[in-house]
C-alpha cells in the first residue's frame, strides 16, 4: 500500500505545527521521519491517524484521496499507529487489549471469543517473532513488551502502514535492536513503516528513506546511503540565523553547585538520573543539552529539593538541603521550572500573588501569618516595571498574560532575590524572539553579577548561545562536556542522539583541533 501526504498544513492557535508537508511512503519501505522535539512529527502523524483534521492538504492511499474523521476510519484504511504514550488499558490482558474495538465474538449477544483472538495473536506473534504472553495483564509488563503488544494490536487489525512514534524512546539499546529486527520482518511481509525519531543513528540504521522535518516543514528527503549523520543533524537542527547573546567571557569563581554521583528515580520508579556528576561555578553558565526525557527534569527537580535523591549528593555552597525547597530558596537559589503554567505559576492567581509565590512566608511580604498587602503591591509594581511585564494591572490573573510575559513574571520573582544559583529548565520554550532575548539578557546579567547558572535546554541554538560550558545529557548521564568554541550544532546533535564522544572525536578530529575536557 502506498501512502502519500500532500501539502499538509495544520495550524494551532498561535503556531503553525505543519506547513505544506509532503511525504510519500512506498509499499514495503521503512520511512524515517526525523526531527527535533517540536518539529511537528507527532502532529503530522495524528493527522494521518484521523485524530486531527488538516487545515490544508490531503491524504492519498494508493493514489486515491481519503479523508479520516476519526481513528476508526484510519484503522479501516489499514493504518496502524503505535503512540509514543502507549494506548493500552493497564488492567486488561494482552488479548483484551489487542481485540478491543475489533472483538472476535460468538453468538448473537456479542460474547467474546477470547480463544479465537488468542489463537490469532499467537499466530501473529510467531510469524513476526513478537514474543508476548496473550494472557498477561498489561500493567505487569515491562515497556518493551508493551510496545510489542501495541505492534501486535496494529497487525491484528491487518494494518498495511505502521506508524511508530518515537518507539525507541522508552527502550534499552538491546530492546531497540530487537524492535529493528521485528520491523525488518514486518517490511519483508509487505508492511510499510513510518518510523518517527530524533535519533540519527537509528534512522540511518533502519530506514530505507528519510524525511527530515524542521519547524513543521520538510527540510529534505534523502536515503541513508546518500547522507551522513552530520548532514542529517544539520538538516534537523536547521541553519537559521543563530541567536546572538551579547556576553563577555565568563570569569568562573568558586564552585556553587556540586552534584556527585546522583541517582534519581522518576514517578514510575525508573532510574532517570543515573550516576550524574557536575559542578557549576559562580559567574558561569553551564548549559545542559539533551533530548527531552533523558533525566533533565528529574535532575532539576532534585536540585530544587522537589524530588528524593536515591544516591549521591547535591551541595549548594557546600550544604546539602535535601528535600526542603524553602531552605533552598533561602540559600539563594532561583528555580525557573520547566513548565510555566503547570508548575511555575498559579494561573488563577494575580500577577502580584504569583510574584510572591516563593517568598510569601517571610518579610517583607508577611508578618507572622498576615500578608502585607502594601508591601506586596509595592514590590509587584516595582518588579512589573523593572522586568517590563506587559499586563493591564498587577491584579490580572497571570493566565491571561502571553507566554513571554508569564515567563517574565517568573524571572521577576526568581531573579529579584539575592542569588547564588539559578536553575532554569527550558527557560525560553515557546517564547517569541523578543522575549527569548530578554530572558537571555537577564540570565547573562545575573551571571555577570557572580551567580552560578545551570540551564537545561533542548534547543541547540539556545545551548550554544548561552552556555559558557556545554554538557550533553543522555540517558541520565553527562556524556560529554564541551567548550562552546568547539561545540557545533552537528556535534551536539550527534551527542544528544547517543553517539559516543570518541566516535564524534574521531570523525571531527580535523575540525576540532583543541578541546579541553572539563569535569563531567
Amino acid at each position, binding site marked *: 500500500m502506498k501512502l502519500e501526504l500532500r501539502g499538509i498544513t495544520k495550524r*494551532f*492557535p*498561535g*503556531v503553525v*505545527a505543519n506547513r505544506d508537508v509532503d511525504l510519500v511512503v512506498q509499499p514495503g519501505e521503512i520511512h524515517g521521519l526525523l526531527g527535533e522535539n*517540536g518539529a*511537528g*512529527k*507527532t*502532529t503530522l502523524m495524528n493527522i494521518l491517524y484521523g485524530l486531527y483534521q488538516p487545515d490544508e492538504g490531503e491524504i492519498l492511499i494508493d493514489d486515491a484521496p481519503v479523508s479520516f474523521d476519526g481513528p476508526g476510519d484510519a484503522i479501516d484504511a489499514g493504518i496502524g499507529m503505535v503512540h509514543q504514550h502507549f494506548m493500552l488499558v493497564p488492567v486488561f490482558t494482552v488479548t483484551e487489549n489487542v481485540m478491543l474495538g475489533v472483538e472476535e465474538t460468538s453468538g448473537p449477544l456479542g460474547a467474546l471469543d477470547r480463544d479465537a483472538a488468542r489463537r490469532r495473536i499467537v499466530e501473529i506473534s510467531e510469524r513476526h517473532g513478537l514474543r508476548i504472553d496473550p494472557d498477561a495483564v498489561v500493567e505487569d509488563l515491562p515497556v518493551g513488551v508493551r510496545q510489542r503488544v501495541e505492534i501486535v494490536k496494529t497487525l491484528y487489525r491487518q494494518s498495511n502502514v505502521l506508524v511508530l512514534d518515537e518507539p525507541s524512546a522508552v527502550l534499552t539499546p538491546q530492546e531497540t535492536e530487537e524492535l529493528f529486527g521485528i520491523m525488518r520482518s514486518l517490511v519483508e511481509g509487505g508492511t510499510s513503516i513510518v518510523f518517527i525519531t530524533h535519533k540519527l543513528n537509528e534512522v540511518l540504521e533502519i530506514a530505507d528513506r528519510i524525511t527530515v522535518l524542521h519547524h513543521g516543514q520538510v527540510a529534505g528527503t534523502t536515503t541513508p546511503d546518500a547522507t551522513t549523520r552530520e548532514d542529517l543533524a544539520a538538516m534537523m537542527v536547521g541553519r537559521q540565523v543563530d541567536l546572538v547573546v551579547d556576553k563577555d567571557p565568563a570569569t568562573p569563581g568558586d564552585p556553587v553547585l556540586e552534584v556527585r554521583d546522583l541517582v534519581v528515580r522518576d514517578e514510575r520508579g525508573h532510574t532517570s538520573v543515573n550516576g550524574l556528576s557536575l559542578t557549576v561555578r559562580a559567574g558561569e553558565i553551564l548549559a545542559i543539552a539533551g533530548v527531552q526525557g533523558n533525566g533533565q527534569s528529574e535532575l532539576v527537580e532534585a536540585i*530544587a529539593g*522537589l524530588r528524593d535523591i536515591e544516591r549521591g549528593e547535591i551541595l549548594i555552597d557546600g550544604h546539602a538541603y535535601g528535600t*526542603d*525547597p*524553602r531552605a533552598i*530558596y533561602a540559600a539563594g537559589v532561583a528555580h525557573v*521550572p520547566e513548565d510555566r503554567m*503547570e*508548575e*511555575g*505559576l*498559579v*494561573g*488563577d*492567581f*494575580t500577577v*502580584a*500573588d504569583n510574584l*510572591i*509565590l*516563593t517568598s*510569601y*512566608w517571610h518579610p517583607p511580604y*508577611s508578618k507572622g*501569618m*498576615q*500578608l*502585607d*498587602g*502594601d*508591601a*506586596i*503591591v509595592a514590590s509587584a509594581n516595582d518588579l512589573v516595571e523593572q522586568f517590563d511585564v*506587559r499586563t*493591564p*494591572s*498587577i*491584579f*490580572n*490573573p497571570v493566565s*491571561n498574560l*502571553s*507566554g*513571554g*510575559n508569564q515567563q517574565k513574571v517568573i524571572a521577576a520573582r526568581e531573579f529579584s532575590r539575592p542569588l547564588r544559583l539559578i536553575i532554569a529548565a527550558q527557560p525560553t*520554550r*515557546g*517564547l*517569541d524572539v523578543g*522575549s527569548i532575548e530578554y530572558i537571555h539578557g537577564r540570565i547573562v546579567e545575573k551571571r555577570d553579577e557572580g551567580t552560578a547558572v545551570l540551564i537545561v535546554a533542548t534547543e541547540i541554538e539556545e545551548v550554544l548561545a548561552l552556555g559558557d560550558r556545554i554538557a550533553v545529557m543522555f540517558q541520565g548521564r553527562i556524556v560529554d562536556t564541551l567548550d562552546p568554541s568547539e561545540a557545533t550544532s552537528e556535534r551536539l546533535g550527534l551527542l544528544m542522539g547517543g553517539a559516543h564522544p570518541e566516535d564524534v572525536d574521531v570523525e571531527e578530529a580535523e575540525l576540532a583541533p583543541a578541546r579541553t575536557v572539563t569535569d563531567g
Partner: protein
Amino acid sequence: MGDEVERKDAPEPEDERPLPEEQPVGEPPRQRSGILGALRGLVLPLLALFTALVVGAFIIILTDFELMGLWASDPVAALAASWSSVTATYGALLRGSIGDPGALIGAIVTLDGDAFRRAFIPLSETIISATPLVFTGLSVALAFRVGLFNIGAEGQLYLGGLLAVIVGFSLTGLPFFIHLPLALAAGFAGGALWGFIPGLLKARTGAHEVIVTIMLNFVAYNLINWALKTPLVQREGRSDPISKIIEPSAALVPIFEGLRAHWGIVIALLAAVAVWWLLFRSTKGFEFRAVGFNPRAARYAGMSIAWSTVMSMVIAGGLAGLAGTAVILSGSGTLSPGFSPGFGFDGIVVALVGNTRPLGVVAAAFLFGALRAGATPMQSATGTPLDLVVVIQALVILFVAAPALVRAIYRIRAERVTGSEVFAKGWGS
C-alpha cells in the same frame, strides 16, 4: 510535542481580558472596578435564581389539578388563575421572609415597639435560618478553595451540636462570658474532628473525601441517635431521643427583645470575616488557594499539600460544627435527631451560589435563609408545599453549576470560566 499546541505568544486583545476573578491581596480601594466586578459576579447567580423561580412557577401551575380542567374549558381564565396562584405563592414567600413593606416602613416611622417587633418577625426568621447556612456555606467554600469537596458539613454539624450541647448542660455556675465561648469552642472542636478524619485519610491514603464525608454523615447521624439515648445526654424522664437543656449561661440570646434572631448571626458574620482574612490575607490562606488551584505549583513553592488538606478540612469541619452549635445554643437549647433540616447540604448550594467567596456566601446564605423562612408561611397561606423551596434550590445549583445552560437560555456571550473544573477528578485521586 504537546507544547506545540500550548504556545501562546500573541498577546490577547485588551477587551478579551475579564476583570480580576478574585480579590487579590492588597488590592487598593478601586471602587469602580470592585463594584463592577461584584455586579458581574451577581449576574449569573441572579439569573439562575430567576430561572429557577420561573421553573418553580411552572411546577406550581402544572401540579394544580383544578387548573388542569380549566385549561381545557377556559384557557384565559386558567391563565389568569395560574398567574394569581403563582403571585400569591411567591408573594407569601416574600412576606414570610422579608415582611410587609408597609408594616416595615410604618414601624420605622412610628418607632412603636410592638409594631416594630411584628413587622420585623419575618426578617428575624430569615436571619435565624441564614445563621447556620453562613457557617456551612463557609465550611464548604473553604474546602472548595483547597480543591476539596466537603459533602460532610451535615455530619460535622451534628458532631458540633452534640459536643456543644454536652458542654452547654454539663457545666453549671459559669458566667456566660466563659460558658458560651466554651460551648462554641466545643462545637467547633466536634466538627473539626469530623473534618479531620477525611482530611487525614485524603492526605495519607488518598481516600476520596467525597466518599468518606458521605459515609461520615451517616455515622454521625447514628452516633447522635445513640448518644441521645445514653444517660449522659438524654433528658431525665424522657424515652425519646432528646438531650438535656443547656444552661442559660451557654445560650445565644436574642439580639432584640421579642424577636428570635440571636447573636449567632453576629458570630457567623465574624466567622465570614475570619475566613475572608484566612483565605485572602493570611499566608496559610495563600497556601490553601495555591494548593486548590494548582497543587504542582504549590509543591514547587515549597508548600505542603498534605498539611493544607488536613488543616482546611479541620477548619471547614469546625465551621460546620459551629452551624450546629448556633442552632443548638439558641431557641430551645436542646439537641434532637432532626435538628438540622439539611443545613449541611444547603451549605453546598450556598457555597456554589456564593462563588466560594465569604461575602458571596453571606449573601447566598441570606437568600436561601429567606427562602426557608418564607416557606412555612407560604405553605400555611397558600397551601403550596414548602418543599417547593428545595426544588428551587436544586434548580439554582443546576444553573450555577452549568453556567453554559443559563448562557444558552439568555444568549449571554461566554466569559472565560476559571476554576470550574478544580473539582473534576476521579475517586482515585
